């Protein structure tokens, strides 16, 4: 296909992607339906017919079997699942008296209906893809049969799968895994945000539209969630992520530079001491820290033994204390990682730059701000962004240390709860799945805004082939 016949959209795509541009396949659905012969056109109804006619039996039969399997599923179960989706089930669990015993008749279970409904919709979408594929391969087989006398055999197809189309072979299972265990649960969970699936309606619930989002932004504090509580958690999440990321980064950088000083001896010894704490699984060290920081824990015991304090310090029981404590404990957890990351980069900075700067009479502060920092920031921007998003979603530190406590009486979120631990508490502990889903969506929006702005401007995204 030449450039002259490309659509404006394709031309734009081509300009934008440059060398990465891959021309579209000439075997389109449109071409197949207008220019294909009768078998190709019929392939839109009977999948694989075009292939079978062109002696691609295995491929054709596979298509046909897939189509039949889909329709069997659709007519036996699929339609039933879809029909219940708008109401999410209405029949309550009942009981009837049979021979003097209560026999329970099964009612509708909305979660199951929702899950199967979502799965059916995903399957229908996949079926549409299969439909496209069926027409395209039929047309391709027709064209190739005309050109070469016969369509490619299964052996030829396998050869292409190992060579020019190796990506289809290699990507199949990983993509399937992501689809089933990442995309599907997310669709399922997002759809829960629009239902009344909470602790009062565990069996039967229904669609409520944007009601849950309204509750999140309402000023009524008697609800499980309210605007003021959301704002409190959101602000603390951002404050936490900011301090956790940047304090870790700068203190870690400082320590790495102290270790990296020319005259510091036993560099490896110091580094291994700091990385010993990484070797202890994070949840173990966090659980240990928690038990050490309790009012009657080891640290308070020690301080009282020395006579420094009379009564235990409220490390995790007072809101302000707890907030500062989690940030400091997080420093303990995070700084070794920063040291590890930064050390490699520090050693990679070209030495001649330092020498040139020294010859020109720069002092250490000038060298630091003009050479070291720009280099590190350039290399580590993506790392900093991932750390920031990682900290927004830092479940372990908060949940294992404080569990969100201290929690005001009656509130669903504690003073140290992040959005993510709040979400966990709402779904797993309180069974308020709809509110949990709403908070998940809000977290996504916050993260998407932060990372899109920064990530798309970073060098490593714009120029992925810079170092080839």
């Amino acid at each position, binding site marked *: 296909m030449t450039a002259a016949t490309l659509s404006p959209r394709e031309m734009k795509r081509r300009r934008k*992607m440059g060398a*990465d541009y*891959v021309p*579209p396949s000439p075997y389109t659905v449109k071409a197949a339906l207008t220019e294909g012969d009768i078998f190709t056109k019929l392939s839109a109804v009977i999948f694989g017919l075009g292939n079978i006619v062109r002696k691609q039996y295995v491929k054709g039969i596979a298509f046909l079997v897939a189509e039949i399997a889909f329709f069997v599923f659709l007519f036996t179960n699929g339609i039933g699942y879809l029909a219940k989706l708008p109401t999410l089930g209405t029949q309550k669990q009942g009981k009837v008296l049979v021979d003097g015993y209560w026999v329970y008749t099964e009612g509708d279970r909305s*979660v199951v209906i929702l*899950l199967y409904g979502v799965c059916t919709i995903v399957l229908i979408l996949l079926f549409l893809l299969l439909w496209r594929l069926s027409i395209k391969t039929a047309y391709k087989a027709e064209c190739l049969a005309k050109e070469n006398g016969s369509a490619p055999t299964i052996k030829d197809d396998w050869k292409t799968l*190992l*060579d*020019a189309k190796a*990506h289809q*072979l*290699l*990507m199949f*299972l*990983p993509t399937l*895994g*992501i689809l089933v*265990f990442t995309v*599907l*649960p997310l669709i*399922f*969970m997002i759809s829960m945000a629009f239902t009344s699936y909470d602790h009062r309606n565990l069996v039967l619930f229904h669609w409520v539209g944007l009601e849950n989002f309204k509750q999140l932004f309402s000023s009524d504090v008697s609800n499980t969630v309210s605007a003021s509580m959301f704002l409190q958690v959101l602000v603390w999440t951002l404050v936490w992520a900011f301090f956790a990321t940047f304090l870790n980064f700068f203190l870690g950088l400082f*320590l790495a530079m*102290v*270790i990296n000083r020319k*005259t*510091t001896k036993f560099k490896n010894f110091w580094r291994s*001491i*700091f990385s*010993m*704490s990484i*070797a*202890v*699984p*994070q949840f*173990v*060290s966090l*659980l*240990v820290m928690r*038990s*050490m920081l309790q009012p*009657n824990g*080891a640290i308070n*015991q020690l301080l009282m033994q020395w006579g420094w304090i009379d009564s235990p310090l409220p490390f995790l029981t007072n809101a302000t204390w707890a907030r500062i404590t989690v940030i400091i404990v997080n420093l303990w957890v995070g700084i070794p990682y920063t040291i590890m990351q930064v050390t*490699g980069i520090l050693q*990679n900075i070209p030495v001649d730059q330092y020498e040139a700067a020294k010859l020109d*009479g*720069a*002092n250490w502060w000038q060298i630091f701000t003009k050479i070291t920092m720009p280099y590190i920031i350039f290399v580590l921007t993506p790392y900093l962004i991932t750390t920031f998003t990682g900290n927004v*979603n830092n479940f372990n530190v908060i949940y294992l240390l404080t569990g969100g406590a201290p929690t005001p009486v009656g509130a669903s979120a504690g003073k140290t709860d992040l959005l993510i631990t709040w*979400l*966990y508490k709402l*779904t*797993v502990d309180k069974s308020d799945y709809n509110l949990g889903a709403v908070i*998940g969506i809000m*977290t*996504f929006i916050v*993260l998407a805004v932060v*990372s899109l702005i920064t990530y798309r401007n970073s060098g490593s995204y714009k120029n992925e082939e810079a170092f*080839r």
Partner: protein
Amino acid sequence: MSSKHAVAEPERRGLLHDQKKRRILGDVLSYVLLSVLAIIWLIPVVWVFLESFNKNTKPYPKTFFPTEFTFDNYVKLFTDTTVLNFPKMFTTTFIVACFTCAISVVFVLSVAFCMSRMRFRTRRTFMNIVLILGMFPSIMAVTAIYFILKAMNLTNGNVTIIALILVYSAGTGAGFYVMKGFMDTIPTSLDEAAMIDGCTRFQVFYKIIIPICKPMIVYQAITGFLIPWLDFVMAKVICRTQSNYTVALGLWLMLQKEYVQNFYARFAAAAVVISIPIAIMFIVMQRFYQESMSGSVKG
């Protein structure tokens, strides 16, 4: 730095302008700082180690470090399986970890190879979708995954182990970014030369790219192996009965109110036991990681 000026202007030779004295001062300060911090970083680690030998198994002891030592906690951990079956948890976690490790390496390598070396129309779309998916909080999907596993009938009895393997390994293909970055530094001329010699893309993948990626594969393998040992949230939702618990859940359970009175010292012992393999892996990983950071092809 300032030595040249110092020689030129001898009258400015104060404490801070004498390079030698200044360096000694800097050394002393940095050694003091490093020692203090090293102690802070080591105390919890040492404390866990000593507590695991504590004769007094009650929580919240009177003294910071234990006074009497015994090996009992370790013996009980592996022999007393009536309340908490630690050996079983250990084997479960180990099996899950092995499978997760193998699957995640294969997935990450294939996806990274396709993203780095192949050019196809959905490549950019795939990368962007994975990026967007990564922004959803992972915990959000936990309950949904439980329902899906339940629908697949994988949440009861001994099949939970399959559920755990699936959950930990299925999505690993999305973590291809580091590996892709590494493959991007391998010169394409290598592939081209091989393809001129008659290699298919698939052969390029396993004959050229995989051997070069060895350090990163080790890194990936160890990360994959560690997932089940460290995860706690997923396991808690999926393993509803204690017989299927993984090590992380077992440790967490030991600190709950019902168990903590008897299991406090054993918790420390268990922590030490699972820290040893992780520490060894970690040391190996760090070496390979630094090696791979220095670039793929030398010379």
